[in-house]
């Protein structure tokens, strides 16, 4: 279980998080939505201790990762797989080395076992056979999927997905949705997804929360989300920029 309590984070004069409270139950599939720049990626980075908050705490299975000594932070991070918004592949390494790095560092696998696990992970994102390529030789969507393969390689308990389907065609996006569901339901991975893709959000999540102006303003199941009366959420789902009335002035 992850518990975020009263999380605050500023960058200079810019207040990004202003008291986020959020509880993510073990086994849950949670989607975080919110406008671009509202701090979703910043929130994810706090969950694995990549950013230190100005105020507030993040507990992972009851242990505070915020302010913990480095050794303990690393122990907690081993429970996580993270897919970065930019994929963040190591560009000096091949696809195989990217996906296998965690296995190499944290397990006693033989090279053969490692190659097998890497191939399995790549198979899950339909990229088996790309082992020897460098990230620069991949398309944007392929990088995302290699990033996903890397995130799942060590069988983490928690997976954080920062916009897993952005930049993918609808068919590949749907296969990624299925993979996320599979990992969540079959392997009981607690899933936290940040996305703008509402089709994906409705399909994969048990619960959707919305981040706005630095706090969580809404939390509900997909069907509650569809029928909500909360103005911001409704506009977000329907893709409306402003109040309709503004348009009539033109």
């Amino acid at each position, binding site marked *: 279980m992850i518990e975020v309590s009263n999380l605050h984070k500023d960058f200079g004069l810019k207040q990004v998080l202003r008291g986020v409270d959020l509880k993510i139950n073990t086994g849950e599939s949670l989607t975080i939505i919110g406008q671009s720049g509202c701090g979703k990626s910043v929130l994810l980075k706090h969950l694995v201790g990549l950013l230190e908050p100005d105020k507030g705490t993040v507990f992972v299975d009851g242990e505070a990762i915020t302010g913990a000594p480095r050794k303990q932070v690393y122990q907690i991070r081993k429970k996580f797989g*993270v897919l970065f918004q930019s994929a*963040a592949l190591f560009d000096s390494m091949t696809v195989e080395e990217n996906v296998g790095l*965690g296995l190499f560092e944290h397990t006693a696998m033989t090279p053969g076992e490692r190659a097998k696990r890497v191939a399995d992970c790549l198979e899950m994102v339909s990229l088996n056979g790309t082992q020897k390529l460098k990230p620069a030789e991949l398309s944007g969507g392929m990088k995302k999927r290699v990033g996903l393969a890397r995130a799942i390689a060590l069988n983490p308990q928690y997976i954080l997905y920062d916009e897993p389907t952005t930049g993918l065609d609808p068919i590949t996006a749907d296969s990624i949705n299925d993979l996320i569901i599979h990992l969540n339901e079959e392997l009981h991975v607690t899933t936290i997804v940040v996305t703008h893709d509402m089709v994906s959000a409705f399909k994969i999540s048990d619960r959707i929360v919305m981040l706005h102006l630095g706090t969580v303003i809404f939390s509900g199941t997909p069907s509650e989300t569809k029928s909500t009366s909360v103005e911001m959420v409704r506009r977000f789902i329907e893709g409306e920029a402003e109040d309709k009335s503004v348009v009539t002035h033109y």
Partner: protein
Amino acid sequence: MGRVIRESGAVVSRRHLFFRECVRLGIDSLPLVLIVGAFTGAVSGWQGHYQLEGYLPFDLIGPATFKAIVLELGPVLTALIIAGRVSASIAAELGSMKVTEQIDALESMAISSTRYLAVPRIAAMTFMMPILVAQANFVALMGAAFVLTMILNLTSTQFWGLIPNFFYIYDVFSGLLKAFFFGLSSSMIGCYIGFRTTGGAEGVGAATITAFVWSCLAILILDFLLAMMLF
């Protein structure tokens, strides 16, 4: 800094990274170092000849050039050239990893970026710098000998004759000790600045320049401090 020392055991457990950096930062610098060495030697031979002409016997050119090279010119010029090449390249590489979230990715995988990225580079540079300087010294001496005997018509006994009398192992050693500290400081500056890079490609460019400037300054200042301590 403290973390670098605490995690320096990684040199042994991550040997493959250390050796790769030795090749990339050290051995690949060798051609440049040899050219610098040869010309440094040549010019110090020539200048020595000009300055001594008419005042002192040419027999002293050999020892004078030798000392200038091993104590000062070899370590400092080599280090400045390498600092330019290596600290800037470390800063650029780590800086672009920082701005593209690769360092965050590494850290999120519970792999220490200090241990995995900084320690091998710093260790490799600290280890390779004295070796590079020793090679530069040798080539510089040959360069000086070439200029003096082939162009300025000294006999090789005039050049080499008195060197053994003035040869102190302490001089050579202290030159190499300087090189050790130059390698340590310029690679640490490269790593430090690389890890703190922000602001995209522009930030990486700025980090590269900053690393170069600071490591050159560090070398000149350290050179002075070490000179005061050693002699």
